[in-house]
C-alpha cells in the first residue's frame, strides 16, 4: 500500500440549513488517480473546494502529507472546466502563471516549462496566444499550468466537461499519458460515469441531500487503458454497479 497523500476525515460543511457535505472521509494514496462521481448537489464540488482551501470545513479535518490544509490555499494544483487561460499571456507564460503569481519566474522555471510542454505535445505552441488554440489545446495548456505548480496533488473539476465527445476521449488518453509519466496524484471530479471508470484507480460515488460518500469502488482492470477498456466485461460490470448506486430508484 502506497503512502497516504491526502486524508479527509469526517468533513461536514453546511450552507445555512443545507448540509452540502456530511461526514465525508477519504484517503488518497500518493500517485493514485481518484474520481469523485455524482450528480449536481452531491457535495463533490464542496469537497473539492474544502480540499483546495477555498472553503473551510465546519467539522472534520483535511490533511496533506500529515499537514492540516483545511481552508488554506496554496497547497494543491487546481483546474476547472473553464480553462481560465489569461488571454494576454503566451502559452509558455500561461504555464508559468503560478510561479509568477507566487514568487516570480526564474530562468530555470522557463526551461522546465518548455521541456514539459514539448514532451507533452505543446512545443509548437509555446509562443501562441490562447485565442489561437482549439478547446482541447487550451485544456492541455491549463493542465500543464496545473502541473507546473509542482504540487503533488492535482484537483481537476470536470476539466473536459465543455469538450465534444471525440476531443474529450482524446484528452482523457492524453491526461493518462501525462499522469503516468509525471507521477502526480489526481482527484478528478466528474458526473460522467464512463470518464470516471476509464481514468481512475478508484471511483468514489457521492449522493445528494445531504451530500455524502455512498461507495468507494476499486477499479479492477489494469493499465494502460485503451478503447477496448470501454467495452470490457469488467468495465460493464462496474458501470452497472455505479449506475445502480447513482439511480437507486431506477434499478430493480
Amino acid at each position, binding site marked *: 500500500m502506497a503512502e497516504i497523500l491526502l486524508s479527509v476525515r469526517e468533513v461536514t460543511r453546511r450552507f445555512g440549513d443545507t448540509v452540502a457535505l456530511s461526514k465525508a472521509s477519504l484517503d488518497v494514496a500518493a500517485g493514485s488517480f481518484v474520481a469523485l462521481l455524482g450528480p449536481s448537489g452531491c457535495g463533490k464540488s464542496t469537497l473539492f473546494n474544502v480540499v*483546495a*482551501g*477555498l472553503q473551510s470545513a465546519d467539522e472534520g479535518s483535511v490533511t496533506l502529507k500529515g499537514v492540516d490544509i483545511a481552508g488554506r*490555499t*496554496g*497547497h*494543491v494544483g*487546481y483546474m*476547472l472546466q*473553464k480553462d*481560465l487561460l*489569461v*488571454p*494576454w*499571456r*503566451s502559452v509558455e*507564460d500561461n504555464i508559468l*502563471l*503560478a510561479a*509568477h*503569481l*507566487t514568487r516570480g519566474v526564474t*530562468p530555470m522555471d*522557463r*526551461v522546465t516549462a*518548455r521541456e514539459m510542454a514539448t514532451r507533452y505535445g505543446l512545443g509548437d505552441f509555446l*509562443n*501562441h*496566444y490562447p*485565442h*489561437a488554440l482549439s478547446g482541447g489545446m487550451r485544456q492541455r495548456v491549463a493542465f500543464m499550468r496545473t502541473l507546473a*505548480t509542482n504540487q503533488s496533488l492535482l484537483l481537476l473539476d470536470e476539466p473536459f466537461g465543455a469538450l465534444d465527445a471525440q476531443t474529450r476521449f482524446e484528452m482523457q488518453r492524453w491526461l493518462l499519458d501525462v499522469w503516468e509519466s509525471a507521477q502526480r496524484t489526481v482527484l478528478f471530479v466528474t458526473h460522467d460515469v464512463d470518464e470516471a471508470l476509464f481514468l481512475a484507480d478508484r471511483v468514489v460515488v457521492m449522493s445528494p441531500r445531504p451530500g455524502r460518500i455512498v461507495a468507494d469502488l476499486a477499479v479492477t482492470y489494469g493499465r494502460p487503458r485503451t478503447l477496448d477498456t470501454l467495452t470490457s466485461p469488467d468495465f460493464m460490470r462496474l458501470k452497472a454497479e455505479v449506475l445502480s448506486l447513482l439511480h437507486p430508484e431506477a434499478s430493480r
Partner: protein
Amino acid sequence: MKKLIPQIVFPLVGLAIVIAAWQAIIVFGHVQPYIAPRPGAAISAIFSKWSQIWPLTWTTICETVYGFLAGASVGFLLALAMAKVSIINKMLYPLLVFSQAIPVIALAPPLVLIFAFSMTPKVLVVAWIVFFPVTVAVVDGLAHVDRDYHQLATVLGAKPSRTFALIELPAIVTPLFSGLRIGATYAVTGAIIGEAATGGGATLAQYQHDAATNFQTQVVYGTTIVMALIGIACFAVVSAIEYAVTPWQRRSTARRRKA
C-alpha cells in the same frame, strides 16, 4: 494588404461623399461665400492664414494634451481607489455623476477667478471632461474581471499585489482604452470651450470668433476643420498606443523571448 481597402479606402470614399455633398449644396443652392464657403475655400483659408493659425493651434494642442494626461491620470487613479475601497466608491459615485451634470461652460468663470487668463483654466476644463469616461470604464472593467480568475489565483497561493499586477491590470487595458478614446475625442472640445468661455487672449476659439465678426467665413470654417483635426489626431494617437500594447488581440503568437 487585404485590410487596406476597408480600413483606408472606404473611409476616404465616405469623406469624399460628404465633401461632394457640401460642394453641391453651396453650388446648386447658390449660397453666398460670406454665409458658407465651398470646401476648397475653407481648406485654402487654412493654408493662407497658416502663420496666424499654427501658433494658436499649438496652444490648443498643448491645452488638450496636458488636460488629457491630467484627466486620464486622475480618472485612472480615482477608479482604482473606488474599485478597491468600497467606502470611497459609495462616497464618490454620486459626486462623479454630479460633476458631469455641471455644464462645462459654467466651469470657466470660477476657474478664471482663481487662475486668471492663463492656460490652466483650459487645461482643467479638458481634464474635467476626460476623467469621467476613464473612471467609469476602469471601475466597470475591474468589476467585470472574471471571479474565477481570483479564485484560481487564491488556490495557487498568489500574493494579492501580484494578482493585481498580473491579472487585474492587464484585464482592464481594453476598457481603459475605450474610456481613453472617448476622452481623447472630447478633449479638444473641452479645450475650445475653455478658450471660448474664459474669453480674451490669443486663442483659436477667439480667432474663429473674430473671423466670424469680420465675415471671413472661409476662415471660420477652416478653423473648425483644424479643431476637428486636433480631435482626430488625439483619437488616432490613443488608438495607435492601444494597438501597440495589446498584441494578443490581433496576433496569434507572442514575440519570442529568451529563457
